[in-house]
């Protein structure tokens, strides 16, 4: 296929605006997937994605399309996630494309990630195709939305295609627009091969599978290849395209998107962002790779069973192949033994990583409370960065603690401004300005400590706005804060993994709440377990978990031991999810208790 007949594009949008559904219709219209095999959000192939109805991973698929001009085109589509925590997936996908379809929900209009993703596409100089989706909805306002977009993009509202991805209206118009407006790839077919690794995953038979976009040259099945950054050489086990399942081919031409099964059994050699070239007479300069993203949130991940530590390390390595935003390093905790400090783009990301590790690698993991990255200036002038409360130096050598602040934008219908402002005040946010999107909707600009955003800000924003508000944020800078470490003592021993850093003003209130939560969460043990919250030597709050006195099953009738064993086994499973800290069993929920302190 000549480059003239290739189009590479991503579908981007705010969460739930219909990207994956639009991809479904394209797969059907191009007969990439038969009607019989079709099911909703087909590209959301992970169980987790299906259960939650959310795209987590970008997925690439190749389609063949016979256009109205009578010519056959190859379309490489990349469906992307809309959730803010997965924007790194979007930016990497965009780098493999020449164009992007910006989907906007006709009833909701422009939301926070509509703009955020739009800017990502513009940064890459991509051709943008705005599409207005869900026009079948009774509340759809396609005209108003088109106007909104016109103001934002400076392109005429006339070119915006109204569609219903659900009902399949307007899909062909979108495909035709892609052919006409998205430029074909322009790489030099005769230059030495340069293919960008934009994603990967691990396959136990074929090793590391690299997802590539060929920018220059061509790739053949028998070629001996080299990764430029790691200088690792290999003969591919297989090369192929996604259609949408992996299908082997003999060549990948310039401009195409596909995969290379590298055969690497370890994950070190092949990194997302690296460039693949030929081992002999290859290119020497890599393509511009990716900026590593900065993690926002950090938490300790520990195997509930200490013996699973090597498995957890293995699982993190492999998962990182499929989640390039994931970073981690070994960490030891007095309470939890050996584990890892893991960095995430947000709380949802953290939740997803934990679930993927547990499901895909069959592990039981205990996650500690999420923390941001603090800067500590010591009395000797030294600056240290810490991403865990346990790393905080002794109070006596701290001169100041700085915490990250964010710029945030809250998109909301006007009627919720009041409750949102109340929330912002509670969370120590500083008001900046209000911008009017149209007559009904505004963007509120604030600055806020990141630590407040990661706790429960998003959930509370949703409830303050009946689900209508959306949120985007960017790093602003570090500021000195009046911060203290809140230690939690279980059975008179401080538990490093339960410590948190809080604003001094909140310490008392949070300490009290935390203790009353922990008192309910920590199951009774054979003995009384005192729990305390303290800052420095000062105990703020204390409570006792009463001793367990009775743990027997009721009458077992007629010698029915089978039922009894089943009950015991069920209880045992529940216990497995707890971590022994000293002689006390502590459940996962205890570590997450601080996320829901303001519930009532």
């Amino acid at each position, binding site marked *: 296929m000549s480059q003239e007949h290739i189009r590479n594009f991503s579908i981007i949008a705010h969460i739930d605006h219909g990207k994956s559904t639009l991809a479904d219709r394209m797969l059907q219209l191009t007969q990439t997937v038969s009607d019989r095999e079709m099911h909703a959000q087909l590209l959301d192939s992970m169980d987790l994605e299906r259960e939650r109805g959310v795209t987590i991973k970008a997925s690439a698929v190749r389609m063949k399309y016979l256009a109205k001009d009578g010519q056959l085109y190859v379309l490489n589509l990349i469906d992307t996630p809309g959730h803010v925590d997965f924007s790194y997936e979007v930016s990497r996908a965009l780098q493999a494309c020449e164009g992007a379809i910006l989907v906007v929900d006709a009833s909701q209009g422009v939301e926070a990630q509509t703009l955020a993703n739009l800017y990502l596409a513009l940064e890459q100089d991509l051709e943008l195709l705005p599409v207005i989706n869900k026009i079948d909805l009774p509340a759809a306002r396609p005209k108003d939305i088109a106007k909104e977009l016109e103001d934002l993009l400076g392109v005429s509202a006339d070119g915006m295609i109204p569609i219903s991805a659900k009902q399949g209206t307007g899909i062909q118009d979108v495909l035709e627009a892609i052919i006409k407006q998205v430029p074909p790839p322009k790489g030099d077919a005769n230059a030495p091969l340069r293919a960008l690794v934009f994603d990967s995953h691990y396959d136990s038979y074929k090793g590391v599978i690299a997802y590539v976009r060929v920018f220059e040259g061509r790739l053949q099945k028998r070629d001996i290849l080299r990764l430029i950054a790691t200088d690792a050489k290999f003969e591919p086990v297989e090369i192929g395209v996604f259609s949408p399942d992996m299908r082997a081919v003999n060549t990948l031409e310039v401009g195409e998107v596909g995969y290379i099964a590298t055969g690497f059994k370890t994950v070190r050699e092949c990194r997302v962002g690296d460039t693949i070239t030929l081992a002999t007479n290859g290119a020497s300069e890599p393509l511009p790779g990716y900026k590593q993203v900065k993690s926002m949130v950090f938490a300790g991940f520990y195997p509930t069973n200490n013996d699973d530590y090597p498995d957890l390390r293995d699982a993190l390595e492999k998962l990182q192949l499929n989640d390039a935003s994931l970073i981690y390093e070994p960490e030891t905790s007095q309470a939890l033994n050996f584990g890892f400090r893991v960095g995430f783009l947000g709380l949802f990301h953290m939740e997803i990583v934990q679930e993927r590790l547990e499901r895909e690698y069959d592990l039981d993991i205990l996650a500690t409370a999420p923390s941001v990255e603090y800067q500590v200036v010591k009395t000797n002038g030294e600056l240290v960065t810490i991403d865990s409360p346990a790393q905080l130096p002794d109070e006596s050598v701290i001169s100041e603690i700085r915490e990250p602040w964010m710029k945030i934008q809250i998109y909301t219908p006007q009627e919720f401004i009041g409750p949102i402002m109340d929330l912002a005040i509670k969370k120590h946010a500083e008001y900046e300005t209000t911008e009017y999107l149209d007559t009904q909707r505004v963007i509120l600009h604030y600055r806020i400590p990141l630590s407040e955003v990661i706790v429960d800000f998003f959930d509370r924003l949703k409830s303050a706005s009946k689900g209508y508000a959306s949120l985007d944020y960017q790093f602003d800078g570090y500021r000195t804060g009046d911060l203290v470490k809140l230690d939690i003592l279980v059975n008179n021993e401080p538990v490093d993994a339960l410590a948190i850093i809080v604003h001094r003003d909140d310490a008392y209130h949070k300490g009290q709440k935390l203790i009353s939560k922990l008192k309910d969460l920590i199951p009774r043990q054979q003995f009384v377990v005192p729990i305390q919250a303290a800052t420095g030597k000062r105990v703020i709050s204390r409570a006792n978990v009463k001793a367990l*006195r009775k743990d027997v099953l009721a*009458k077992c009738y007629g010698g*029915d031991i*089978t039922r009894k064993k089943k009950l*015991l086994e069920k209880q*045992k499973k529940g216990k497995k999810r707890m971590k022994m800290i000293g002689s006390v069993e502590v459940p996962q929920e205890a570590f997450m208790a601080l996320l829901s302190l303001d519930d009532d």
Partner: protein
Amino acid sequence: MTFIQGFQSLYLHIPFCKTKCTYCAFNAYANMDTLVNDFVDALVREVEIVGRSRPGQQLHTIYFGGGTPSLLSPGQFERLLSTIHALFNVKSGSEISLEANPNDLDAPYLTALRQLGFNRLSIGMQSAHQNELRLFARRHDNDAVARAVSAARRAGFANLNLDLIYGFPHQTMTTWKASLVQMMALQPDHVSLYALGVEEGTPLERWIARGELPEPDDDLAADMYDLATDILGQGGFEQYEISNWAKPGYECRHNLQYWRNLPYPGVGPGAHGWAGGVRYSTILAPQKYIQALKSSVGDYVYPRTPATVEALEVDRPGEIVDTLLMGLRLTREGIQRAAFRERFGEDVVTLYPALMNRFSAQGLLRIDADTVRLTTEGRLLSNMIFRELV
């Protein structure tokens, strides 16, 4: 098929009750009186299948449990017992027990039972307070228990058990103590005390879920248990199992069979049995049970009867776990290390070195040269041990 030699214990399940108690999750049904005759026919058939499969099998205990077995007539027991005697080798002096509702125990009935060979009665007293009995929807009142006990003594029953329940909503230490004292005044030979379990699907569970009754308080239940242990001890009873006390020599031999993990064929709907290396259970619904035994043709060899629904071969590790789970309930006898070694070829302590160490350090188990058993503290926390063993 392997036969375990020696004496066995036969359990017969009688699934009928006049009314259903509010806490009850046993396989028991009210308002099925019309089925009783057919049921006895079916039960006789099942006993025959078991007996014919193992000619000459020795029995040393026979136990009619329920449900409310005292709803059967002397004539019906006669049929069942004569079938048993015809097909099994019932050792002389065997323990033959009946679970009974006090209301059913009048003098003629008791005399008839004695004549049929019954020598042990287990009477469901549950509480000495009218309002508590009403909460349970028990059909007897407190006087009925006293009347039944004295009538049973007059009829010649020398071995009487009384059941009490504790740890239920609105029960207080005061009412519990009164129940215990009144029960002791009736001078039973054996006492069973059951902590109330709130079972799924019972009215009691619904009431608690709807907030109409308070949840049982485990701490209070533990205090009640301690009080009972004191009172019974002072009254000359010896505890021999987590929930059971007896005057010396009056331990329930049938239940000991379970706790020692020795074989017991179980028959009747919803019965459990263990014999021939197989653990099994039978059809729950009386109607279906009757049907199965009526329509069945072909040769069944026990432990499979037409009523069997689940049958599980128990391998050696399984048998070891069962032996521990049951045996550790025996507070006095515990696990006899020599007997265990003889049965399984290994010492119980060296079989679970880490766990045994831990439990004894935690004060839950006492390990002597001859025995492994629960400590006083371990009695109410036994699940902490059992959970690790399954």
